[in-house]
């Protein structure tokens, strides 16, 4: 059997990356959360930065940081999950087109509107000519990228793979999500998300990238064991789907130390998580993250960042905890996430 190690990680989200060291999270009183500004200039030339949409900027920045940490110059493949892709440029080109009634248009935003712009721009920057893929299956996008990584490592031809998830917000398009019940009607403070008792959630922009390798090294965070995507699952079948997934990895639920849940405060769909909290994983340390970083189609990449941190640093900041059960030596972490009851994802990580 081959192993896959996470040797470098990086995230940009509504929270700072030093949230493990700092007990005061950023709070927001709006329902669309921006990613915190980071020092993009430190890694990306200012002239290029000016032309980049948020998704490209966040993606390239995280890529470089994760690779740097892992000591990788050029990965063999770049795999990206993004549910909504380059929405800012899509919105720009579409509104220009509609306003001008298909008159003369500048191609710049069209060029940058395709979903694989981020992965393409990373390849261009790293001069990486390897396998380059972009997955866009709503909340299962990042999980599909991990699945492809597992397939590629299985061929034993590539030793280093860059995997990431990124989603940006844009004014009109993200705004539409207020109209169809995806975003909560009333403004809440993010830390009150789980107590809101209303429908919808808070939406955010974020990116998280990982440098995966077939070899561990001094900076290794964790081992990526397996991933599963499930398009639709009945409430009553979720336990057995999770047990099947663990069984395939020669494990049983009791061996899971920490479960990271994608609870997003949407009263219509949080029952998927609550059932696990009260059932299969009631005696386990339970962790949430969307009250801190909001929800978006590739936010499970943030959960993967969180799991990697927990496994390396052997600690769980209190602010992430959903119950009072402690876990001093986390070894196996299961991440479970879904959006609007569809596109469920399971990710299994293990301490190395």
């Amino acid at each position, binding site marked *: 059997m081959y192993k896959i190690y996470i040797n470098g990680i990086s995230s940009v989200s509504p929270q700072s990356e030093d949230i493990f060291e700092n007990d005061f999270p950023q709070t927001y009183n709006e329902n669309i959360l921006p990613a915190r500004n980071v020092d993009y200039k430190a890694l990306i030339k200012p002239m290029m930065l000016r032309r980049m949409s948020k998704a490209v900027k966040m993606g390239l920045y995280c890529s470089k940081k994760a690779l740097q940490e892992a000591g990788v110059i050029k990965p063999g493949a770049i795999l990206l999950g993004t549910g909504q892709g380059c929405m800012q440029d899509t919105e720009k080109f579409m509104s220009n087109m509609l306003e001008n009634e*298909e008159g003369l*248009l500048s191609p710049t935003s069209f060029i940058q509107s395709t979903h694989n712009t981020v992965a393409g721009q990373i390849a261009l920057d790293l001069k990486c000519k390897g396998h380059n893929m972009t997955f866009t299956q709503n909340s299962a996008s990042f999980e599909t990228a991990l699945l492809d990584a597992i397939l590629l490592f299985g061929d034993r031809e590539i030793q280093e793979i860059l995997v990431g998830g990124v989603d940006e917000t844009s004014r009109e398009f993200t705004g539409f999500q207020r109209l169809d019940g995806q975003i909560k009607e009333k403004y809440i403070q993010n830390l009150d998300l789980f107590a809101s008792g209303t429908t919808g959630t808070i939406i955010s922009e974020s990116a998280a990238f990982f440098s995966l390798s077939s070899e561990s090294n001094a900076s290794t965070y964790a081992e990526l064991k397996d991933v599963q995507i499930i*398009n*639709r699952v009945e409430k009553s079948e979720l336990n057995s789907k999770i047990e099947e997934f663990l069984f395939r990895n020669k494990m049983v639920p009791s061996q899971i130390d920490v479960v990271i849940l994608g609870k997003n405060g949407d009263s219509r769909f949080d029952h998927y998580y609550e059932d696990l909290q009260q059932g299969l994983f009631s005696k386990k340390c339970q962790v949430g993250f969307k009250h801190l970083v909001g929800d978006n189609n590739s936010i499970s990449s943030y959960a993967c960042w969180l799991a990697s941190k927990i496994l390396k640093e052997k600690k769980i900041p209190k602010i992430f905890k959903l119950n009072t059960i402690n876990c001093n030596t986390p070894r196996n972490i299961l991440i479970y996430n879904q959006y609007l009851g569809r596109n469920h994802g399971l990710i299994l990580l293990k301490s190395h």
Partner: protein
Amino acid sequence: MRGVAVTGMGLVSAIGNNIGETHDSLKSGKDGISSPEILKTNLQELPVGEIKLSNSQISDILKLPECHSFTRAALLGILAIKELLSNSGYSKFPEDTGFISGTSIGGSDKTEEHFYDYKDHPEYRKYIQAQHPGFTTGKIAEYYDLKGVVTTISTACSSSANAIMMGARMIESGKLKRVIVGGSDCLTRFTLNGFNSLKILSNEKSKAFDKNRNGLNLGEAGAYIMLEAEELIRDKRVLGRILGYGNANDAFHQTASSENGEGAYLAISQALNKAKLSAREIDFINAHGTGTRNNDLSESVALKRIFGDDIPDFSSTKAFTGHTLGAAGAVEAIFSLLAIQNSELYPNLNFNSEMLETELTPISQFQKKEINTVLSNSFGFGGNCTSLIFQKDV
């Protein structure tokens, strides 16, 4: 047995609503290029490969309820998969069937149609999520009750070729026993205006690899094939096998291809390598051949780098269907499989004279010829280059 078996296929494009009609068009050299009629656009002077079925006509064929929220790409996909199901040997797809779909634009047809409606017209809000590719894939999955591994690849014009590649890997790794792969994309004002702003659309019928080529025609299609593991095949008819695949990045420019065709060269090399074939064993190439100045030259250079002066018979079939973007790789995979099954070569329409730089001449007439192995190329924005190799089942 080498390679992953293809055991079903279905296709709807501008040259036919099913494989039979498509095959007739390919044999008789009848293209599907016309002025846009179903797509409401001001760019009437730009020819397109449009499927002459309105959304409500397709909805009637599929007997969908009036209040449905299927995007046009979903309707085309469902139509193609209906044909696939009918020749797959199943009456209903078994529960463990995976679904990997490629698309570039997804359901953005609804976004551009209702952009100004959402605010004041709640009845259109069911299409807000449709903008994102996963929605269309989800609707197709919902129609066929596919609940397991369902995902979307969006790498512009190589999307469905990549979906086929990933499906083959899923079968080879044992992660799936059966998977429907391919893609679906519809014509939109967004893509028509986008390609027009790049000045790479032709106002006449496209002529790939021609000295005087002046751009591409956009098209639309739904095209899917079914892949199955050996243990499921038993006495089923195998339509062909996926022997090799490769994806590489040109890492040159967001939209333009490099002069030396590096990405294409690497993708073809990888596919040959995976298939354990030498370049000489390729009988026919279904080229990407969009008809733009840039692509056709770059691809020609890559072909010369791989095959030297001994380039196999090749043609681009995009003059038949238009460039169907995310669906193109799957459309041309099916053309490749038809070539293998029927011992035929389909012509590169509208070709007159060789380009000076490379002096390559594609097949310009329909031909009967024994074909064992076909290379199919699909290249997309973001430098994304994919090559697939199909072989006759023996």
